């Protein structure tokens, strides 16, 4: 058991910390979370920010140098993400590219695909969206209806995706489509790379509960996809996506713990300032602080396992289940501290209105809390699947 970082790792942490301190915009305060919704300005700022992070060597940390990464390890990746969270630096616009597409390509992509797409994710030349969910296939992704039929060297895709985050700003989509309609459950699906300017793609915006555009419907009508844009084997799309996701779930959301801790600190500060800090509120904030520390320890434990070469599997559902629920508790505390000031035109009120509303989706996407519990119960604890319909 060793819970320390090496001197080199601590030096690396000091480096990113200093860089963040010097490079975040001078007026970037914890409360400065886009109180006014100007989505174009926000997008331009975020792209510029991520380019600067990359230019300084602080993205693609654990990806190979051959594809533009830094060639460092998971510990450095953890450190950078934790510091970004603690600094409450902007979150990425390209989470689909970073957390889903690049890891999938690194694990099963062809050499050409890796060389072509991964550097562009880092340079923010490509922004990705994820076309998995459909109107009748959300938790039950095996029920997708979007089909890709092979015609010689091209595949022709038809169908509708929904809840596609970032599709309105993305220039590429990772598409999950049925390629063998006869196959059972998860066995007949394939992943494709689809440029969003391909003829036959139509994007219609959906406004999120939080007010932003955020997600979309994406319609595919006779969209032609060259076979070289296929990711991994035909009909193995699900296995590829799930294999990568277990690992990613364990590693990519590490930064959230630090960010959430800062939210809690800011809540505490505001409650104190406004004279609303009762003993009971302190206890409930303390309970959340404990859960945040536990999340950090769990992150470190998973990190240690990755370092020692262990396979990370379904048990990483624990992390998704925990962070999404903890964030909703913080949001509830925010409502409580705001109380009658919920409609104040202040940075604090604006921030926690947004946190509360956005956090409602966090127990739904990337596998809802119910689905995470099913995974833990059935695949980690080995509880049986139902043999009959419920009485």
């Amino acid at each position, binding site marked *: *058991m060793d819970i320390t970082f090496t001197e080199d790792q601590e030096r690396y942490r000091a480096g990113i910390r200093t860089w963040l301190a010097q490079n975040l915009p001078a007026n970037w305060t914890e409360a400065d979370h886009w109180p006014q919704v100007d989505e174009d300005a926000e997008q331009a700022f975020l792209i510029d920010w991520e380019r600067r992070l990359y230019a300084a060597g602080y993205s693609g940390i654990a990806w190979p140098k051959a594809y533009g990464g830094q060639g460092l390890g998971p510990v450095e990746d953890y450190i950078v993400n934790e510091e970004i969270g603690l600094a409450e630096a902007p979150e990425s616009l390209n989470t689909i590219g970073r957390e889903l597409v690049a890891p999938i390509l690194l694990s099963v992509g062809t050499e050409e695909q890796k060389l072509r797409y991964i550097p562009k994710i880092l340079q923010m030349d490509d922004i990705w969206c994820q076309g998995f969910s459909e109107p009748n296939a959300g938790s039950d992704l095996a029920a997708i209806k979007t089909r890709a039929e092979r015609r010689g060297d091209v595949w022709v895709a038809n169908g509708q995706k929904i809840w596609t985050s970032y599709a309105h700003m993305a220039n590429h989509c990772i598409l999950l489509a049925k390629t063998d309609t006869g196959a059972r459950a998860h066995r007949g699906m394939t992943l494709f790379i689809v440029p969003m300017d391909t003829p036959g793609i139509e994007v219609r915006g959906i406004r999120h509960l939080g007010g932003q555009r955020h997600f979309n419907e994406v319609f595919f009508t006779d969209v032609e996809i060259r076979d070289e844009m296929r990711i991994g084997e035909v009909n193995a799309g699900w296995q590829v996506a799930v294999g990568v996701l277990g690992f990613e779930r364990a590693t990519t959301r590490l930064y959230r713990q630090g960010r959430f801790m800062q939210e809690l600190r800011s809540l*505490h*500060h505001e409650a104190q300032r406004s004279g609303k800090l009762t003993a009971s509120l302190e206890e409930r904030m303390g309970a959340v*602080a*404990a859960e945040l520390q*536990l999340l950090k320890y769990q992150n470190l434990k998973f990190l240690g396992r990755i370092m020692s070469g262990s396979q990370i599997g379904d048990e990483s559902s624990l992390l998704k289940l925990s962070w999404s629920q903890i964030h909703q508790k913080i949001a509830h505390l925010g409502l409580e501290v705001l109380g009658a000031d919920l409609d104040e035109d202040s940075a604090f009120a604006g921030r926690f209105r947004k946190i509360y509303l956005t956090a409602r989706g966090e127990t739904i996407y990337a596998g809802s809390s119910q689905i995470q519990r099913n995974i833990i119960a059935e695949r980690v604890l080995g509880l049986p699947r139902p*043999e009959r319909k419920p009485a």
Partner: protein
Amino acid sequence: MNLQHSSEQDMLRDSLAAAFARSDAKGADWGPVLAAQGALALLTPEDLGGLGLGMVDATVAAVEAGRACLDYPLADTMLMAGALAVASPDMADELAEGRLTIVAPSSGRFGLTADRLVGTVKVSHPELADWLAAPVGDDRVALVRPADLEIKRNVTVDPAISTATIRVDMNMNLVPTHSVELVEEKLALLRCADLLGAAEFCFETGIQYIKDRRQFGQPIGANQALKHMAADCFVELENCRVAIDYAAAILDQAANSPAARVLAQEAVSVALCCAPLAARRIAEEAIQFHGGIGVTWEYPLNRYLRRILRVSQSMGRIGDHQRRLLCQVVQSTGWQDDKTKQARSA
């Protein structure tokens, strides 16, 4: 960075589990049995005949004691043996052989004014105790003989283990314990580890039961209502585990610096916020999983639930731990640190 037990620690766990399963010892007879396993000398320095191990190993042993519902104060004796071997080498031999049993207060505290020791504490296992070792002040331990003191037996919630209230008002010889930094935190953490062991037993018993028991033509564990309770218990159990491991690891480093000492106290607070509630919930859900059999006197869950109540009782108000942790977390330097702010505006 590594938060997994070593293979030696796994072996320690397995050999203790085997010893607990093999022996039908009761009460004080456990002393020599545990001594033969080396369990009582885990924290005693090697040059004084002990194993010279740390808190991670000690929590491994305490988890097994909880899991086996052990009716002997292993944690107290082990921790104090490590402390006292240095201060009172004359006791070391008897301690190493398991011929002395030490209890530490489960709650309450003695105060030291001038040369008098005054106060009231509660203890478990009063009848086994050759010594009562009570932390007073910073990293010091007062050593008194319960036989000389006013002892009032309590109505214990845990019928396997008696409890008592001990009052003192006496002149005493204080035993300084240079070797036990953070003795109260260590004691608290070992109690958390006992809870974890008891919770592990309840969890595993409950999961096995819902796999085996059939109603409506299928295992009851196929029902999602029970699955989701089980998944939540799993998360709580894993959280308890990692909280204890993390705190134990940092306690082992705490002697190295004042900063590590603060972090160790914070980590122990996290364990205290987590373990009592998690253990109780896991035991309660395991009982719910069992239906009627779960609420019988004979079924083992009864003993474990009562153990969890007894051990938790000693750990102070959860709300106080939560408030202390909040304070620690809010104060610890994060981004809001002034120096960093200066760097940012520079």
